[in-house]
């Protein structure tokens, strides 16, 4: 069972019910559960979208798109069925926040899904969990069954005359399926390859119908916005970044864990105070701030607020909120190799710049790591990565290229050491380095 952590600086909104037994529907109701859904039924779609816009909630999957605005893009008068799709395919290395939501507060996901459905006029929602999360799927399935039994889902929910169905779905192992259009393909029973945009899912999505796709954490935040009021929720965060976020701090820290901090919270403080500082009192070398696809920050770049805009200004991204801390002992070349090996393994092969680019990056970085690299390899790594950017259907190409560019730009001296033979590894380590995932 994943350990829960806490720190006085936390503002517990989404995690408020963690550890209280709220996976039980009666407990959830006792803790203000399903009040927000009933309020939204009473007030209607316009109210919902206005409150969502006022809340400043931005997509927690990584892109940070304003949720209320996303919902407002769904056309009102269409005769095709509309859908809500909850993305719980959580697979970005460094990210394990949705894991805790599914475990401790599954009804918040259901309630958020109902509210999203009310906002856009959908009659059906899907909650998609990655295949590895079987025990969490069981918790989710039970929560859905309990909600049906109480009349919160199905025909005439809460006696309102409105129908809303929810279906849970399992994946079967694929990072790419976390991308929204690939997710729809997977849910339609196909290979998880991305669709070209436009049309955007809000217009043509699942089964060709207008679809809202939100990350599980985004959806779980929704009921709280209506319990607090949109404006009050916005005030908790920073400018244009409403509310709180679940930050997963992992790697070389004393107290790794998922902490709920207000948007805009200082990254350095999050590492040194909230997560107890670097493990074993070692020196910090680098931080991957928002899941493995976000460009690395060096030790002297950490005085920055954790929100979408401030992280963007700092040359990186808030991403999925997965903060990975690296101490002074880490070889950045090895770390870069492990990162690109992941993207090479997970590239779905649909777009050539990503399929070929990730493979050549892995080969080139692998050669440098093995001590057989030449100076020109370092320019090639940068050139290859830069030419993948923006040239693929989905962001996986960028997700592989961005961190690679970051590593080679900020830690080029380490790559150079390997090329000059000052940091080579033994043949045995070389074999281990060529990650054998097949």
């Amino acid at each position, binding site marked *: 069972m994943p350990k829960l952590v806490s720190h006085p600086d936390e503002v517990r909104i989404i995690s408020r019910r963690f550890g209280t037994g709220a996976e039980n529907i009666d407990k959830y109701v006792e803790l203000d559960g399903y009040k927000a859904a009933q309020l939204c039924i009473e007030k209607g779609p316009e109210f919902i979208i206005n409150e969502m816009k006022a809340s400043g909630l931005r997509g927690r999957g990584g892109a940070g798109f304003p949720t209320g605005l996303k919902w407002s893009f769904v056309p009102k008068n269409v005769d095709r069925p509309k859908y809500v799709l909850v993305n719980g395919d959580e697979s970005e290395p460094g990210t394990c926040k949705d894991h805790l939501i599914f475990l401790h507060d599954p009804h918040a996901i259901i309630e958020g899904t109902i509210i999203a459905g009310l906002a856009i006029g959908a009659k059906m929602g899907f909650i998609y969990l990655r295949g590895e999360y*079987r025990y969490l799927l069981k918790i989710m399935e039970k929560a859905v069954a309990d909600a049906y039994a109480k009349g919160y889902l199905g025909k005439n929910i809460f006696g309102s005359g409105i129908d809303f169905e929810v279906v849970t779905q399992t994946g079967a192992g694929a990072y790419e399926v976390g991308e929204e259009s690939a997710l729809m393909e997977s849910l339609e029973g*196909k290979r998880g390859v991305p669709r070209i945009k436009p049309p955007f899912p809000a217009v043509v999505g699942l089964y060709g119908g207008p679809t809202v796709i939100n990350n599980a954490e985004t959806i779980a935040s929704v009921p709280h916005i209506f319990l607090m009021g949109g404006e009050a929720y916005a005030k908790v965060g920073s400018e244009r970044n409403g509310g709180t976020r679940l930050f997963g701090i992992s790697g070389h820290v004393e107290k790794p864990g998922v902490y709920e901090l207000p948007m805009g919270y200082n990254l350095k403080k999050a590492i040194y105070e909230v997560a107890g500082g670097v493990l074993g009192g070692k020196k910090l070398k680098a931080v991957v701030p928002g899941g493995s696809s976000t460009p690395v920050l060096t030790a002297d770049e950490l005085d920055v607020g954790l929100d979408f805009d401030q992280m963007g200004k700092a040359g990186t991204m808030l991403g999925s909120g997965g903060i990975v801390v690296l101490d002074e002992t880490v070889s950045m070349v090895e770390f870069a190799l492990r990162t690109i090996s992941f993207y090479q393994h997970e590239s779905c092969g649909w777009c050539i710049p990503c399929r070929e680019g990730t493979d050549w990056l892995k080969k080139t970085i692998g050669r440098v790591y093995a001590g057989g690299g030449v100076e020109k390899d370092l320019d090639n790594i940068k050139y290859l990565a830069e030419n993948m950017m923006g040239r693929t259907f989905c962001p996986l190409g960028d997700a592989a290229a961005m961190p690679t560019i970051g590593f080679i730009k900020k830690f080029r001296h380490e790559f150079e050491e390997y090329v000059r033979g000052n940091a080579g590894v033994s043949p045995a380590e070389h074999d281990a380095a060529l990650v054998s995932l097949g």
Partner: protein
Amino acid sequence: MATEKRTIFSPELAARFDRLVTLYPVKRSALVPMLLYSQDEVGYISPEVIVELADRLDIRTNDVESVLSYYSMLRTKPVGKYNVQVCTNISCMLRNGYGILEHCKKRLGIGHKEVTPDGLFSLEEVECIGACCWAPAVQVNYDFYDDLTVEKMDQVLDDYQAGRGKVTV
């Protein structure tokens, strides 16, 4: 529909599939879950599974095969009774995930995607399993073990060896 037909699945799973296909606007949406649940029961995706799923969903067998080959959890060969999946992605790597993997290799005497001769264990190095803050983490079949040390890993393997391990399906 298929209840009166011949099926290779247990009556429980066949009934589950009968219901599953009715939940979606399009039957084919049940394919990925059906593949995974078939694998849980049969041990892998056999040619017979492919034929029956294609039949149940009114699609071609090569449609099933094309989906099957995409997802990393799906396999066409049996694995050990306990499939030990060691995460070595970044957060686990920083917390000795490779040490855990090496230890498992040594103790079980097998490498990546291999099975012990008695068929009890198989080993796999896997990508991020979503337990980064509790690294290093391992999954045995569907069960998570986190915050591992070599000693704790031994305990986990001992438990499965003795038939006391947890099994979630």
